[in-house]
């Protein structure tokens, strides 16, 4: 166990955290996800040592670091808006933390050059940070945080202000870099795609409270309450691109063929929103390209919606109203057809 947060409570302005507890192992990529204003940022800042909790403790290994100043914790922080020091160029931004640790200019230079190469920002080293694009600033901010080899790297919505393409690239890059630097990461996001691509542990937060902790699979397959179910309800599948048909890509997902308009190569992760899947007791003809036959293996009524899990070779979740359920005669173990358009199959990683 690397980091243990125990029963942590605090308030800061209009944000609060209420008795949060969770653990992080060495090498974990933990993602905290929740709607805006759920207290994620102050939780992160408290771990970094910027706020004093009203209650609860934080342990690093066996050491209680609750009242340790931030500079003694070995925890780096990357903010959504990067916070590159505008009074220094990119090189000095990255070297800033290193200079505190190493008293040797040559050594510092070597480390900076190395991480600049890894993050592909070598050509930017002598630029002023204010002249960089969002994606470039992002990489510099990550380089600055990572080059000091922190015990834990905290990232507050690092990809949220990037455009979709850059975001995808950054995710892949971050994943590779974290491996090379063997970093333990806690990241905040409100974007589920980050979870699928990066996390091995997920914490769901709402209104300052932790609602569920688990692996991404746990969270997506066994959401513990309606909020999480609605929040994370999308179906996530690991597939392999096997060919093209017209302008659609053909995917093989555990033996089941799916069509998507998104470009795909090799192994991909796709997401299908449950509300976009039509459930029918009969095979119907339509313009939708994806038609699967399966057996209903689970029926859960939550609030005014009914959640079905259908095994069609792949397990898919879908949602209908109680009225439709009655009309269609839905019950467990019944065979149904699942129909959804190719455009509903979104490649996310």
């Amino acid at each position, binding site marked *: 166990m690397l980091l243990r947060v125990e029963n942590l409570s605090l308030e800061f302005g209009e944000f609060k955290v209420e008795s949060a507890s969770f653990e992080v192992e060495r090498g974990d990529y933990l993602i905290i996800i929740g709607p805006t204003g759920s207290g994620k940022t102050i939780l992160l*800042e408290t771990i*970094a*040592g*910027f706020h004093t909790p009203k209650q609860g403790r934080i342990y690093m290994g066996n050491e209680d670091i609750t009242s340790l*100043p*931030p*500079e003694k*914790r070995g*925890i*780096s*922080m990357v*903010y959504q*808006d990067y*916070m590159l*020091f*505008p*009074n220094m160029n990119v090189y000095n931004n990255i070297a*800033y*933390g290193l200079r*505190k*640790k190493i008293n040797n200019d040559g050594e510092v230079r070597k480390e900076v050059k190395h991480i600049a190469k890894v993050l592909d920002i070598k050509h930017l080293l002598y630029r002023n940070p204010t002249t960089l694009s969002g994606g470039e600033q992002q990489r510099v901010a990550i380089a*600055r*945080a990572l080059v*000091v080899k*922190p015990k834990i790297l905290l990232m507050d919505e690092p990809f949220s202000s990037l455009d979709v393409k850059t975001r995808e690239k950054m995710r892949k890059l971050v994943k590779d870099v974290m491996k090379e630097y063997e970093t333990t990461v806690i990241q905040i996001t409100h974007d589920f795609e980050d979870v699928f691509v990066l996390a091995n542990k997920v914490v769901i937060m709402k209104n300052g409270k932790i609602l569920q902790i688990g692996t991404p699979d746990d969270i997506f397959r066994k959401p513990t309450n309606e909020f999480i179910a609605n929040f994370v309800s999308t179906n996530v599948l690991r597939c392999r691109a096997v060919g093209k048909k017209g302008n659609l890509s053909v995917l093989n997902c555990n033996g089941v063929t799916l069509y998507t308009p998104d470009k795909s190569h090799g192994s991909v992760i796709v997401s299908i929103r449950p509300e976009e899947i039509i459930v029918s007791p009969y095979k119907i003809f339509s313009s939708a390209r994806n038609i699967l036959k399966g057996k209903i293996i689970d029926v859960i009524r939550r609030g005014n919606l009914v959640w079905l899990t259908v095994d069609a070779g792949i397990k898919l979740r879908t949602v209908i109203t109680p009225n439709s359920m009655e009309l269609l005669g839905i019950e467990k173990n019944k065979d149904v057809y699942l129909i959804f358009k190719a455009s509903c199959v979104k490649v996310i990683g």
Partner: protein
Amino acid sequence: MSGKLSFKGFCIILAALFTAILFIAIAFLFFVPSPQEIWKSMTSPEMIFSLKLSVITAAVSSAIVMLLGIPIGYALSRFSFFGKSIVKSVIDLPMAFPELVLGLSLLLFFGNTYVSRSFEIIGLKIVFTKLGIVVAQIFTALPYSTRIIYSAFEGVNRRYELVSRSLGYGEFETFTKITLPLAKKGLFASTIIAFARCMGAFGAVLILAGGSYMNTETLPIALYLNMSYGNLGMAITSGIVLIIVSFIAIAIFEKLEGLNAVKS
């Protein structure tokens, strides 16, 4: 539409009119006396003494004001502590507080009290001395400077400091390496204001330092004393010198700031 236009016109004309009157009034200062008269007054021992005294005291005072104002402004901007709102209002008070009353309060405080006696033990005499000029100038200028410093620090995103801390730098190092450079513009502005306020400080200086001829006679006091003797030429010259020194100060600071901006 025409109503709007005429209101706009009214506001602009008013602004232009006021500015014009101000400029003409200042110009009168330069053109009413003859150049010979100005030159004679300018080179008189009294004027040279006043100019020297004013520049030296104002420089010392504004340095002290900045040394005090930076930590105070930072505390008000960054930390929450018991009595913060009181500290804030005390600092704001002298802005609305008549300078003469401030001087009177300082005179009573430093006058014949334990405070003055304990200062005298270490050899510092404040009332009716040049040191008194500095003290009065500091109290006059500090609130203005602190205000500007405070908003300069408010303009620096706290997260820069947090990032610096997380990268291993302590509170003070972060302050000197990140916060101060990022607040530089506001600190420069504050120094200019402090110097200008100290140069022009009159009421508090008159009462605490006494305004005695060729002793505690700063430029504003020279203006006042000569005015009351009916020595119009000397009074006007003091005014001119005051204005010139203020403009030079502003020019120097702007130049310095410009150089700094180019460097970084």
